[in-house]
């Protein structure tokens, strides 16, 4: 056998081997896709389909008809941007937008402040730390609807526990209209949501706190730094990224919040606690006006997408 034949045979063997490798890789890749296909299909069905349907409805005049007459029972007629124009001119939408922004700000700031305080407490050498941790996480496991009903009773003007406490301390005090006064109602529902959301902030911040090297605190203590200086110049800089991420996530979740307000006030009194989510719910399921409701939903999605993009960019920059 001459050298040429050997080289040819070797090349042939190499090519055959590389083809086999490629085939195996392809099969492996196909198998991977096959495994995730059901999950992808499910995601498309439960996320993509409703979003696309809402987008479609937002550009149409929608009339409900029996399901046998039209797809999903929606008889539609294209109306360009009419739904969006109507929504933006609707004073209720602007009120709901303002309320939602205020509700989100109070929730985020309140839960951040309380979450940080509790996280610092749990990070210190406090007695019965496990018990405190369980107690502080309790609101997280309570369903929002249950929390809303419970707090509604606690805020009740005549029979609620808060007014009973006030009466115990100051017997002549007039009852506080927690949910009946327009301003107090927004404060009360926001306070309830702060209670519900604080554990999330606490968990995030506690994880951040525990990642701070203790040597830095020891060095600062040796240098004579006060507790406030250690908090200001070590804790806060280390936690800044966690705070930013938690704030963005909390902001996104709270902006589309629904249950607490629906259960506690239904958006009232008047429109005092009307949020975008409760307004969308009423517009679609009480007035059956799915076009404007979908347009509102799309506007909220667009606003939240901007925040979500900031979040993703933030994570990437960190990486």
């Amino acid at each position, binding site marked *: 056998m001459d050298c040429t034949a050997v080289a040819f045979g070797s090349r042939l063997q190499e090519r055959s081997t590389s083809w086999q490798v490629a085939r195996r890789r392809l099969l492996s890749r196909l198998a991977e896709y096959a495994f995730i296909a059901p999950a992808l299909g499910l995601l498309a069905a439960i996320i993509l389909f409703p979003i696309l349907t809402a987008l479609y409805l937002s550009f149409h005049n929608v*009339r*409900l*008809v*029996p*399901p*046998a*007459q039209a797809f*999903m*029972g929606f008889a539609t007629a294209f109306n360009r941007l009419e739904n969006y124009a109507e929504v933006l001119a609707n004073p209720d939408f602007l009120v709901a937008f303002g309320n939602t922004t205020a509700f989100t700000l109070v929730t985020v700031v309140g839960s951040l402040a309380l979450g940080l305080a509790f996280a610092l407490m749990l990070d210190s050498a406090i007695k019965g730390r496990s018990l405190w941790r369980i107690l502080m996480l309790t609101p997280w496991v309570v369903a929002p609807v249950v929390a809303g009903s419970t707090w509604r009773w606690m805020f*009740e*003007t*005549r029979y609620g526990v808060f007014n009973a406490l006030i009466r115990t301390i100051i017997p002549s005090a*007039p*009852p506080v*209209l927690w*949910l*009946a*006064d*327009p301003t107090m109602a927004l404060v009360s529902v926001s306070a309830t949501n702060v209670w519900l959301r604080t554990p999330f902030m606490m968990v995030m911040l506690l994880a951040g706190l525990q990642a701070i090297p203790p040597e830095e605190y020891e060095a600062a203590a040796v240098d004579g730094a006060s507790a406030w200086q250690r908090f200001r110049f070590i804790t806060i800089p280390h936690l800044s990224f966690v705070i930013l991420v938690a704030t963005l996530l909390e902001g996104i979740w709270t902006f589309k919040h629904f249950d607490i307000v629906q259960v506690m*006030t*239904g*958006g*009232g*009194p*008047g*429109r*005092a606690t009307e949020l975008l989510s409760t307004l969308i719910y*009423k517009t679609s*399921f*009480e*007035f*059956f*006006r799915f076009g404007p409701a979908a347009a509102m939903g799309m506007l909220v999605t667009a606003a939240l997408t901007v925040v979500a993009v900031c979040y993703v960019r933030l994570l990437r920059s960190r990486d």
Partner: protein
Amino acid sequence: MRRPRRAGVSREPGGVSRRTFLTATAATAGITAAGGLAGLLAARQAPAAAQRTVELRFYDWKLTDKPPRKALELITAEFTKKYPTIRVKLEEVSWPDHQKKLVVLAQGGSPPDVARITDAGVLPLANIGAIDPLTEWAVKNKADEFLTKIPPSVRKGLQFKGADYMACATASMDILTWNKELFKGAGLDPERPPKTWEELAEYARKTTDPKKDQYGWGIMSERSNSASRRVIAWILSGGGELFNEQGTELVANSEGALRGFQYWADLALKHKACPPGSTNAAFRDVMRGYGQGKIAMFDGGPNNPKMAEVDYPGILERTDMGPMPDPWRCPLRSSGFVLMNGGKFKEEAMLLISWMTSVYGQVEYGLESYEVPIRADAATDPKLKRERLLVQSAAQTVKGVANPALHVKYAEIEQKLFDAMQATLAGSKTAKQALDDFVAEGNKILKRT
């Protein structure tokens, strides 16, 4: 001797091999598929079984309260005795959600066969094709009594494009309900209720004692049908109207309408006769206060103290009812049964509707629930005469006027009325500003195509 490990079969120590994992996955998928296939086959065979025994789905918010539930269980059991092949499955739903859930069920393709709705729901549901007309079946079977016995003005208001969609069963008109003990305690004659609006305000003030947490008037203002209908009654009684004669425009900011609306709000704002926090007081709040003897009067039907009796025994005995003070012009509200479009068993459903709205059905239901039958021959049935409050309420109800709040877009307009009510009670708008805004905003809704 240990078997040599085959190439390509990876296994972590103590883990599961790829082969075992794939086999288990395939087996699970196979079992799931077999189960699904069996289910499909069973579903295909179901119609054959259904021909033997039919199960009708009956949807009703009244099932959440004990007295009406007892009546409905009795009436449907009697129905099954008469038609042994038809069983009735009672499906309860909460009052605030009953209409939207019905729409969702209808649009999802699984509506109940028969549902109870209020008069306010008929036109919106008929407009979207969620309910079927009843006229054809009634004429074909020569069984149109459940339609012809409805007072003509009420029946006309419930028709959509000339067809009947609801078989009315009950009628109600809010009349004065008072606690005789609280009247006595305030030095008032419990046998002589207030006759004029001025007297009503005076009685409400006299029975109010915030130190005892006791108030003269129970006001309802939350976002519910119960509250808006009561306010409309005050608007009509003041001399106003909700809509113009053609039903094309809201006119509820007239002088008369303002008089009624202002009076309603003044019971809370000027006379301070309503419990604190009345800005969004619910029907249940008033019932609780009345049941506990903390509210002296409210505008309600005989079924209200009957409901309160369940939690506060003895309240029925302490209650009396009579006409509201003059001038009083109250809409006559009704509820009844509808045939759902997409329901499985139309013929059987119509038999049930016919049974529920018969004299037997209405009397038996009235006896337990304390709701006034809409049929005159049922309302005057001797069996009902032993129920004092029911008779007093029935006497007022026959004087009622047909409900003006029936409109395809009523749900949206009602939201604007709630805004007006709550803004006035919260003091953020005067009664006039609130009504003007209500009319302006409501008319925009009516004009929208």
